[in-house]
């Protein structure tokens, strides 16, 4: 009896959903980014091939600059003739919104009408893209070569590497947010953006000093574990590079936060991987002239080669 009621409710819900779906009279206007140079349009009905492959029927521009039209290089229609992939000469900026105007859509020989597609990534996927990008694809240590001093300095033991990784990630996230707030609420309104280097380095060192003092009073145990790394963080270039990159790309608060998270976690991963190898290196027979830093550099080079493999990665 109970299952019967459940099934009938389910059927009712499905019928309701179907009824509430829009009729296909005006075609479904949905588009998405494909690779970095192409946009995919879903028409929801088969379209005529001669119409679909004519470049003059599509007008594409970025929503912020409607005057600059994007030239379409090639058009591909899939087998059921419902999806069209437009490929452009220039790579698209996937964090912004694009508008595709379609003229005189023709289906089965007759004109159905014109329409407008908006192609945009959802905020979540943009942010996840930034995090994954900073963590793996453009790992700050292995492909941007930042923070190498600390990277070679504290990667001798796994334990210190983990401590440094955690401390660094936390400080990185907080200082990225703080520098973003200072930059967009103080420096930009006052037209002082040329002072950003001085302001950012000052902010980071004051913040680190403050954390050091507060942690020493509030949680001496944690301070004992992480305190030594705090001082080192100021000399790490990643902590300064992230706010500078954010300022240059005019990133919003969430983008700044994601870049901070990605950079911090990416650095922690790199540090941990390196520490694992260097612990093993201690018991290996390394040629005498290579002992110490030279062999560490070669290992880092091998890691960098491995991280090149992430370069084609695009999940979101």
């Amino acid at each position, binding site marked *: 009896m109970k299952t019967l009621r459940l099934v009938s409710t389910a059927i009712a819900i499905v019928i309701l959903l179907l009824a509430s779906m829009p009729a296909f009279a005006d075609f479904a206007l949905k588009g998405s980014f494909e690779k970095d140079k192409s946009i995919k349009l879903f028409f929801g009905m088969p379209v005529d091939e001669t119409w679909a492959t004519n470049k003059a029927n599509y007008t594409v521009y970025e929503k912020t600059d409607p005057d600059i039209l994007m030239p379409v290089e090639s058009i591909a229609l899939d087998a059921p003739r419902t999806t069209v992939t437009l490929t452009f000469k220039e790579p698209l900026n996937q964090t912004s919104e694009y508008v595709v105007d379609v003229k005189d859509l023709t289906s089965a020989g007759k004109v159905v009408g014109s329409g407008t597609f908006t192609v945009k990534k959802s905020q979540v996927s943009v942010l996840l893209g930034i995090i994954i990008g900073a963590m793996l694809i453009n790992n700050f240590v292995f492909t941007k070569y930042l923070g190498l001093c600390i990277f070679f300095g504290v990667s001798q033991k796994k334990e210190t590497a983990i401590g440094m990784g955690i401390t660094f990630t936390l400080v990185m996230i907080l200082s990225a947010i703080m520098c973003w707030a200072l930059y967009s609420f103080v420096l930009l309104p006052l037209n002082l953006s040329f002072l950003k280097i001085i302001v950012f*380095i000052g902010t980071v060192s004051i913040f680190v000093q403050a954390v050091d003092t507060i942690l020493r009073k509030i949680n001496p145990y944690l301070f004992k574990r992480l305190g030594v790394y705090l001082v080192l963080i100021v000399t790490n270039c990643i902590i300064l590079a992230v706010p500078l990159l954010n300022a240059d790309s005019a990133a919003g608060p969430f983008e700044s936060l994601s870049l901070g998270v990605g950079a911090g976690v990416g650095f922690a991963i790199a540090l941990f991987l390196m520490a694992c190898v260097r612990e093993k290196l201690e018991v290996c027979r390394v040629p005498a002239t290579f002992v110490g*830093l*030279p062999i560490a550099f070669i290992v880092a080079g091998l890691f960098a080669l491995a991280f090149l493999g992430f370069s084609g990665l695009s999940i979101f």
Partner: protein
Amino acid sequence: MNRNLQLIWNGLIPENPIFRLALSLCPSVAVTTSVKNGLMLGLAVVFVQVFSSCTVALFRSYINPRIRIPAYVLIIALWVSVIDMILPVVSPAVYKEVALFVKLIVAFAIIISRLELFASKEPFVPSFFDGFGMGIGFLFGLCLIGAIRELSGAGTLYGFDVLGFRPLLVMILPAGGFFVIGFIMAGMNYIEYKLTGKIPSAGGAH
């Protein structure tokens, strides 16, 4: 030898910032895909090092030792801001490639360590030569790595086609920089071992 010349020589080879002291490694891997980039960043570092050494040497009696580190950082940041405004005018094309690292000179350990170890204790003239020597040593290191990587990776030298083919593409990829520095460091260790009979311990951690 004259002490000033001695100071310059010291920065160039015996205490070379990159290969001996192992300080400021980030730019030495990052911008050395060509000689031109290395030269430009090296000149920027010479400028910042010389001017901040001189500034600190002049004001060393006025800076309270308890707040010396923030004071040094601000002095360096000042001169970095100056060079960051000069470079894009002098050479816009190269600046585009090294822009981030010019700004990051603030965080280069070599500069602040020279201020702490030398300029805060010595008068103006030796500080000038020490800063100049360290800067030149850094410039030398960047150009050497840049030359090796550009020649083996792209077959060119300072933009001119020398070899006509690309022997080792990996050298201008991210990984190449690490390999080149590792091998140069090992090579310098080997030379020192042949000359003095003992292996020098590699420099400071950062």
